[in-house]
């Protein structure tokens, strides 16, 4: 279970998250909000990439401030731009890079990498230079490099933003099929249809929280017309 307790975060003078207290036990959690609303900072708190200015964040009982390394082993993170998260020159090497800190036996690591590449349809590209992959394949590689460590939670910050429709569908289909708890930040609202829990972030606070069917129409009205926000947000 992920718990945020009275979390506030500020970059210098600018407060981007204000006094957020929320429990996130759900298997699928969507996060939506306007640009600059604080949603990316919120998800960066979940694996300790950003530490709260005040309050605390715990993942499965581990505090991100105190147990950052252990939290990052449990929480994988996928960013919007795959080019910024692929570190090694070739596909298999990048996946294998994630296993280096686990000090795994070489044969076991090779087998694990091969298995993940097969699962993501990248086995034919194992020795190919990462920069020659398509945008969708790069994002699949970024996902593979995170999932090879078998995290319990996967946080995805706009993983389909830079992809065309076909690649976005492929990546989303794969994310949806994962057994892990998923926290997905996206502007593509259709990806969240049917999800049990969606949070709407606005100006650093959670303004709506509930099933996608209730929350997404509210979010659309919030973004369309300020007057529509007179309606009470779903909770």
């Amino acid at each position: 279970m992920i718990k945020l307790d009275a979390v506030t975060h500020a970059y210098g003078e600018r407060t981007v998250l204000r006094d957020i207290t929320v429990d996130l036990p759900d298997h699928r959690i969507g996060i939506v909000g306007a640009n600059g609303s604080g949603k990316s900072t919120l998800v960066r708190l979940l694996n300790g990439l950003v530490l709260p200015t005040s309050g605390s964040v715990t993942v499965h009982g581990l505090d991100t401030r105190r147990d950052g390394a252990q939290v990052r082993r449990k929480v994988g993170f996928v960013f919007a731009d795959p080019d910024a998260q692929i570190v090694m020159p070739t596909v298999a090497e990048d996946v294998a890079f994630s296993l280096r800190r686990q000090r795994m036996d070489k044969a076991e690591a090779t087998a694990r990498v091969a298995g993940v590449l097969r699962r993501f349809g990248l086995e034919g590209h194992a020795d190919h230079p990462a920069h020659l992959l398509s945008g969708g394949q790069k994002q699949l590689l970024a996902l593979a490099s995170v999932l090879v460590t078998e995290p319990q939670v996967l946080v995805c910050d706009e993983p389909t933003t830079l992809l065309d429709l076909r690649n976005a569908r492929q990546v989303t289909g794969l994310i949806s099929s994962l057994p892990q708890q998923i926290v997905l930040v996206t502007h593509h609202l259709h990806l969240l249809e049917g999800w049990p829990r969606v949070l709407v972030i606005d100006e650093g606070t959670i303004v709506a929280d509930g099933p996608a069917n209730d929350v997404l129409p509210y979010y659309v009205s919030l973004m369309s017309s300020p007057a529509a926000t007179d309606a009470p947000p779903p909770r």
Partner: protein
Amino acid sequence: MLTGLYRPGTSVLHRTPAGAKLAGLLLLTTVLVALRTPLAVAVGAAITVVTYAVARMRPKDLWAQVRPLRWVALVLVPFQLWSGGPTAAIVVVGTLLVAVGAAGLVTLTTRVTEMLDAMLWLLRPLRRLGVDPARVALVLSMTIRAIPVLAATFDEVREARRARGLERSPRALITPLVVRTLRHADRLGEALAARGLDD
């Protein structure tokens, strides 16, 4: 040397440990520099050509490795002819071509991770001086990875400059290029932290 890219294969050279290949490369170039004779260059060139064949590489693969040197050779040959005569020109330019060709073959037949493992081993003595070999190896691999990313950024910025009719403005090229490069570095650092690099 590392900017080339690994070509998968099953030849003897592909199966040879990276450390042995690097040692062979060091030996070859050291002998060439020490002997400095046209005969040594000819033998070195023959060895290089044969090893390319053993690795099942084509002549065009060898040419791709040494081709970037053609402009250097264009300057070096006349200079060496003028300053040292034909023998010096053959030895200097020949040594350079053989060394780059042989280094290219090491790259073509060695995975970057194997190369990094060999470097980790070679850099171990530097631990006493406070150098972290793993970090040095990681920096090298990220440098290799950054080359195509920066090349793509350069192309995009150049296109954007052209679209705005600012082809001749160096500022319209350099400013966004530096900003985007720094932003990329920032994101890369964040991604490395997310993957537990500093844990």
